[in-house]
């Protein structure tokens, strides 16, 4: 075990090539802060709304555009910086390397002669359960209430997810003076009196 831990810990430490150097930014030379406009957001529940809408006053949109224009390649930086998740290249590369890690670890165990039949069986069972758990939890999404912007997403039961999202319509308004988020709040049909 010690033999296993030492190289793992060593490699964690040893790969500190980024450590004494400045941690790379999204781009090494994009040192300016992203554009931002201080504003006020009002969120309103609307029983009559059919879809979620985000209304942005035209004046604030102009201000934001001016901020973006002031930054070289501003649109590219903003789009890339806000895109979350893993790219295909990341997924493929990480998958290959983790697979190779298992292969090399298996070869090492086999060569070291420490792999007894019982240990191999126990390892296989653990990997089977771990794999199944990964599939189950990996594909399990949040409930529908957290995946659509409605009044239900504010319910206490949804707080545990700490996030929520859904389709939204962006609108530009000439009349509003603050950003507004209109959230549909359809009423549940009341059960008939018994």
């Amino acid at each position, binding site marked *: 075990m010690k033999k296993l831990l030492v190289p793992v810990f060593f490699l964690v430490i040893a790969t500190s090539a980024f450590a004494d150097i400045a941690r790379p930014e999204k781009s090494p030379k994009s040192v300016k802060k992203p554009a931002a406009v201080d504003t006020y957001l009002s969120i309103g529940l609307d029983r009559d709304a059919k879809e979620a809408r985000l209304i942005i006053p035209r004046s604030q949109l102009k201000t934001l555009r001016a901020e973006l224009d002031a930054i070289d390649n501003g649109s590219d930086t903003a789009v*890339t910086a806000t895109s979350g998740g893993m790219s295909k290249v990341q997924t493929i590369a990480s998958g290959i390397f983790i697979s190779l890690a298992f292969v090399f670890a298996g070869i090492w165990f086999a060569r070291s002669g420490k792999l007894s039949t019982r240990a191999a069986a126990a390892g296989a069972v653990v990997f089977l359960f771990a794999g199944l758990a990964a599939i189950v939890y990996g594909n399990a999404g949040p409930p529908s209430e957290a995946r659509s912007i409605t009044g239900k997403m504010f319910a206490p039961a949804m707080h545990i997810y700490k996030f929520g999202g859904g389709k939204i319509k962006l609108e530009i308004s000439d009349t509003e003076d603050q950003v507004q988020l209109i959230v549909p709040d359809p009423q549940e049909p009341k059960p008939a009196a018994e």
Partner: protein
Amino acid sequence: MQEIRVRPFALTSAHVFLGAFVLACALAAVLIGSFPLQLSIVTIFLFAGPHNLMEFRYFAARMPVRWGRSKLFYSVGIGGVVVLTAAYLTLYFASGNWLWSLESWQIYAAVWNTALILWVGLLFYLRGKQRRRDWSIAFAAAFLLAGLAWIVPQYWSLALVYLHPFVAMWFLERQIRRTRPEWLRAYHLCLISIPVFLILLWTLLAGQPNLTQETNLFWRINQHAGSEILPSISSHLLVATHVFLESIHYFVWLLLIPLVDRRAIPWRLNDVPLFASSRGIPKIFAAFLIFSAFVSVALWFGFAIDYTTTRDIYFAFAIGHVLAEFPFLVKML
């Protein structure tokens, strides 16, 4: 009748070492916790150049005149340092041109990370072969870490920032084992005290408001400590933690390693095989040492004239000395 003997307490150099270390850490924690941005600027200004010089001096003292059985190990080690440093500088300075999109730069950076991890894995394997042991498990560990570096590159980079100072502490541990074994227990107690100071810092600073980012320099310091990756944690805490660990790492290279290893004392060149041996390269060695000293002084002037730009340039080139640590650390295992 049972005789009870009371052993009188005798103050040893190990006790003094432990007391001084803990006292210095306490002082550093108080100062850095109170003025993290200021201390970040001051410590880099004062110690960045000299600690590089001391590291070079230390590695040079450990380099044998003839590599012998270690020829392959040193070739891979030094070759890796040169190639990876060149690749890193190319990535760092060429990435701003219009040919490189942000996505392609991120992929190149990830490829560089992977190369670095595999290089270290290879060094470990070669060292195992020298010691007639099977350390091929290093490849499995390297591939696993490479996979993680691709999955969460931002957390990976940030983890490295915080782990790097511990490399110096590891060097010191290996060195104490060799030259001052009577200090080993005291040093282990010193190492145990570091998490205690960190927990104290985190307890006191967790509720502090974020540090100012009103200048480009302050923003860079905040960002270096991970304030953008961990926005829910006070940047005061992050910067203070980083500066605290970095200060210990400077302290180790500049003071503690020369204290435990006579060969690391800068002016004792007669203990350096490359300089003193009849088969050595004394002129080249002396020239390189003088050049390194000159660079340290030039860095001070640079920091005094334009701190932010000099800091960026320093951190780009500092990759060379950071990479050079690995072959020598692996060789000490």
